[in-house]
């Protein structure tokens, strides 16, 4: 079974190591601006959310691409940009509701997460484990546990004398 990039914003500490590691791996520079993953921060509320391509099953980017340059990698399930076909119209970046595809500030090209060919570097560098690369069953399990915990907290509140 294919693995998925599992994101848990509650664990994110906003250190942006993922951005640095990503840009280093792909662009050979430590430049968070040129990373394929970003942390959206609300500093006055303490909210940090990793924003990255979610590798949709029915990708909007693929639908809107006029030259069919977005292709699914059979091995990892990652949506890849075929730069031989891409004309740089940036419709994918415009229409993605999750800001999964972005524009490289140095080259103007479209860049997006390619799951590093099955071993995402951002996950390796995420110390608080807000990013994990796991099988779908495990991701489901983690989600389920979290929901159950919340449910149990709620029940305790309701049942408290």
């Amino acid at each position, binding site marked *: 079974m294919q693995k998925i990039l599992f994101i848990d914003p*509650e664990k*994110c*500490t*906003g*250190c942006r*190591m993922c951005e*640095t590691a990503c840009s280093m791996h792909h662009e050979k520079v430590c430049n968070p601006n040129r990373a394929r993953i970003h942390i959206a921060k609300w500093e*006055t509320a*303490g909210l940090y959310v990793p924003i990255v391509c979610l590798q949709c099953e029915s990708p909007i980017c693929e639908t809107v691409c006029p030259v069919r340059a977005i292709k699914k990698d059979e091995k990892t399930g990652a949506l890849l940009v075929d730069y031989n076909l891409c004309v740089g119209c940036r419709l994918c970046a415009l229409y993605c509701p999750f800001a999964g595809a972005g524009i490289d500030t140095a080259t103007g090209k479209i860049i997006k997460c390619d799951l590093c060919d099955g071993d995402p570097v951002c996950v390796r560098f995420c110390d608080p484990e807000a990013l994990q690369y796991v099988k779908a069953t495990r991701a489901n399990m983690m989600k389920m546990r979290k929901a159950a915990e919340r449910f149990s907290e709620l029940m305790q509140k309701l049942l408290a004398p």
Partner: protein
Amino acid sequence: MNDMIMSTRWAKAQSRWGTMIIYSNTNTTGLIRTRNFQLNRLVEGQDLEPENIDRYSIGTAGCYGCVVHCRHRYVLREGPHAQLYGEGPEYTSLGAFGTMVDCKKMETVLVANHLVNKYGLDTLETGGLIAWAMELYEKGIIDDKVTDGLKLEWGDEGAVFEMIRKIALREGFGNTLADGFRPAIAKFGKGSDYYAIEVKGMSNLHSDERPTPSFALNIATATRGADHLRSRPAVDMYGLPEELLVEVYGAPVASDYTSYDGKSRMVWWQELLYAVTDSIGVCKFQTVFCALHAPKWEEFSRLIRLATGMELSKAQLMQIGERICTLERTFNLREGFTRKDDTLPERYFKEPTPMGLPIAKGRKIDRERFEKMLDEYYELHNWDKNGVPKKETLEKLGLDKEPTHLL
């Protein structure tokens, strides 16, 4: 590098509770200024124990690229300050709005920490000034007329919050304190300077340095004023084996933290290291602060090589540290600070510590030995008896052409 940082127990503890973790040790031992400088332990201070942050925390936050993520993000869920969000608090805030003003509730610290962050004030300086004003109020040196009718009583959190607001907005009494210690002393007179715990006009951290001569020398010599982060040899607290200390510091250093022997070397060495640490943008807590095996010269050397290609040996880095310290020193000399300013508040020499474990109780700083320590410290820097850098020192560091208006 990350693995090396996280291999220290200090970093592990810090990533869980932040710098607040220091409180558990220092409060038990008796190394904390309480009621400005009257006591050295916060009795019934359990609520300020770092574990209690968990009640309010929604997770931690890290600085850019840091694996330690030592800052808690906290939200107050109920009470008059419900929905208030803040980050921290640091160990310093625990003291500034907890022990020094004799407030015993974590919530007071969290609210005050939020306020100073919002107003853009320094937590240590603000707390230090408020605690000082409280002691003056208690002693009758200032009264209701001076404080605009505000009753500055120990442990009154309302008074603390109000004073933070007044200082930030420069209202009435707050305006006087906002100018800092020295102008306020000139205004109050009546021996108010005796109660001011400041060096070179800057407030000291809420740590009580009387049982620890090395820390005392640190705050006395810090170029910015009583700055504990300029050269604090925090590893001194562990009582590490002397063989280990010789290896790191390069000459014998006493393992006992109440001793004066070799401590000047410790302070000097740390000062150079911190100057370099600050220059390359590495966190001070993750170099030799609380762990001897944390990254230091050799690792910095490697980092600089990898990032810039520059080859700098340990000796060269130490010389850079020396240059920074000496340059700051000449700046201070130009501004009129001399050896007589490298000292401690009078109370450190006069009043013995009233509380704490046997190792910390009944201690004060011995003036003669302190002065001797200061001599040694100047000698290590290659400065003369008055703390003025010698001509050959300036030449060696390439500072002889600096426009210090002194030479």
